[in-house]
């Protein structure tokens, strides 16, 4: 019976609101956009943080990535040297592996730009000479065949693992394993094909789609440490032993500590600073912190629009109370208690706000899609944003409805009845 009366009151509220359709719709608009923007903003935040997490996942959160870089003093040198010598050494790899208790293993990587050939087809590849551990630290889906294994390295087999892209261009069919391709004049047998990850939004990931993975020892033996780079008609020679080292740390807790220790050690061996360290975990922390700030900023802006929406409702309800003073007087004379008048007006504002919120919930995800389409920012509508918005719009209705409702209830019935 109580719910029956509540339903009747809600129906009555809706009926009253429908008397002024345009006014009610305009009043609602504030909440519609408020809730819509809260959802949209939280979706932008959620999308960005998912993206950050995805990047970190690709890098591996217990990994530390060290890359060789051309030292800055050489880059500013107008007079190019005949040969540039820089970067990580084989010994660095050994030292890192041996001296830190939290380091589980390291993966040394040489990268050599080289043309791959099969018959008349050719493709510029990036040879990645590494150990079989690479595929553990940079896990990728195997499309066909297998990845490199320990015996490939021990027995110095001329084998290569291609990416899906490379295989399609060179082998024509994506799953042909066993073909022999030529890399800079050497014959390599294709033993496997993997699917590489594409870099998203400027993330540094260790692999690329033109990679050709060969055993490290084979790479050293066949291609040496000197790389020729042709650019602008000049031939430039670089001597780099290792282009990168991927370090696997025992646990997430030890990552930052170990990274600092490695940094300290490397800086004594490489005073020129010809290396760069990437700690995905630190990037993650940084990304999260940035995300948190962003969420607050976006959320506040959206929240302010919701606040404005609420004030709009309050304004209209105050006008409505004044307009309906006579009605309030009649109801009070008939015997309505103050709290029944409060309930009546509160129901009206909550219905307005809830309806606005509902439309906002439909608008929000739409807004998120529009943002994604026009700005390329990934957006994901999180369930909590929708639930939060429903709650917020109800609260807005109650908070901003309370004052007008209280004012209505506290009118003196005698004067309210006399009101013209």
């Amino acid at each position: 019976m109580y719910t029956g009366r509540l339903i009747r009151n809600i129906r009555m509220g809706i009926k009253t609101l429908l008397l002024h359709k345009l006014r009610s719709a305009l009043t609602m608009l504030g909440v519609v956009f408020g809730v819509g923007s809260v959802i949209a903003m939280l979706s932008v935040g959620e999308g960005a943080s998912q993206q950050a997490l995805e990047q970190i996942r690709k890098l591996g959160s217990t990994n530390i990535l060290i890359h060789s870089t051309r030292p800055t003093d050489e880059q500013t040198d107008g007079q190019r040297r005949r040969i540039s010598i820089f970067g990580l050494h084989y010994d660095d790899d050994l030292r890192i592996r041996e001296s830190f208790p939290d380091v589980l293993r390291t993966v040394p990587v040489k990268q050599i730009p080289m043309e791959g050939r099969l018959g008349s087809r050719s493709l510029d590849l990036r040879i990645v000479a590494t150990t079989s551990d690479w595929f553990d630290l940079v896990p990728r889906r195997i499309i066909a065949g297998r990845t490199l294994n320990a015996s490939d390295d021990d027995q110095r087999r001329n084998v290569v693992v291609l990416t899906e892209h490379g295989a399609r261009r060179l082998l024509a069919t994506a799953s042909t394993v066993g073909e022999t391709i030529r890399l800079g004049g050497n014959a390599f047998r294709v033993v496997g094909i993997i699917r590489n990850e594409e870099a998203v939004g400027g993330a540094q990931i260790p692999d690329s789609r033109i990679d050709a993975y060969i055993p490290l020892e084979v790479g050293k033996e066949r291609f040496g440490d000197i790389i020729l780079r042709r650019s602008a008609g000049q031939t430039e020679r670089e001597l780099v032993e290792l282009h990168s080292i991927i370090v696997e740390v025992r646990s997430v807790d030890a990552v930052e500590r170990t990274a600092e220790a490695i940094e300290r050690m490397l800086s004594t061996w490489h005073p020129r600073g010809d290396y760069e360290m990437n700690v995905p975990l630190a990037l993650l922390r940084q990304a999260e912190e940035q995300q948190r700030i962003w969420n607050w900023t976006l959320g506040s802006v959206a929240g302010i629009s919701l606040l404005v929406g609420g004030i709009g409702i309050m304004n209209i309800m105050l006008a409505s109370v004044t307009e309906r003073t006579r009605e309030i007087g009649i109801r009070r004379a008939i015997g309505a208690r103050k709290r029944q008048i409060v309930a009546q007006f509160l129901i009206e504002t909550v219905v307005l706000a809830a309806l606005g919120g509902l439309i906002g919930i439909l608008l929000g995800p739409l807004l998120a899609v529009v943002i994604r389409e026009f700005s390329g920012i990934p957006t994901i509508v999180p369930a909590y944003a929708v639930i939060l918005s429903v709650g917020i719009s109800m609260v807005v209705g109650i908070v901003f409805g309370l004052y007008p409702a209280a004012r209505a209830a506290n009118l003196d019935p005698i004067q309210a009845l006399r009101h013209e």
Partner: protein
Amino acid sequence: MTRLLNPPEAEPATSQPAPGAAIELDDVRKVYLMGNERVNALAGVTLRIPRAGYWAIMGPSGSGKSTMLNLLGCLDRPTSGRYLLAGQDVSRLDDDQLSGIRLQKLGFVFQSFNLIAQLSVQENIELPLQYLGWEPGRAKDRAAELASLVGLADRLNHRPRELSGGQQQRVAIARSLANDPEVILADEPTGNLDSVTSRQIMELLTRLHGEGKTIILVTHERDIAAYSRTQLHMKDGLVDSIEGEQ
């Protein structure tokens, strides 16, 4: 003539005419502060209106008849003195309790009808029943019954503005009857009506009196007051004279 009043469950209350008074005022005073000045709107009124009385309160403006009506209608409290409504002392009740008294024991008829514009005739008549917590289906039946008693059975779904003044006042009377009140207070009920319609409304009220309702009119028109059995004249916040049945 069909009986206008009293749903079956209310029958016992009026079938045996109670000896008690509907209204008893004992030295009731009402003092207003106008700036720094104290205005004695009621300067000590002692009065007894019996059950099933049909009274008209008359007097020039400023005589205190509006204050009297507000007090009798439990819209206001006396500054001092005692007011018994159907035997219950209501002079010291709080706002919620007074609302409850109005809801259960009083019916109002106003000069300007005071129907709620956005509600239909049926919903207007139902209004007191809603606040009394009647179940919707039952309230609807009761509203239909009352509408037919005042001759508006075919207007249940109309809005007030679609009705003539006289019809609106009949809806208001139907509404005032919905809670089967002890007393019906009518404040200038014909003030906005032409003479023909006025007569119809007064005949309706007289019929209600004939069925045992206590009716108190406030009017300044002699020919309207003439419908009542007792005329109370007020002057300067005091009872000046009482004519007719007592």
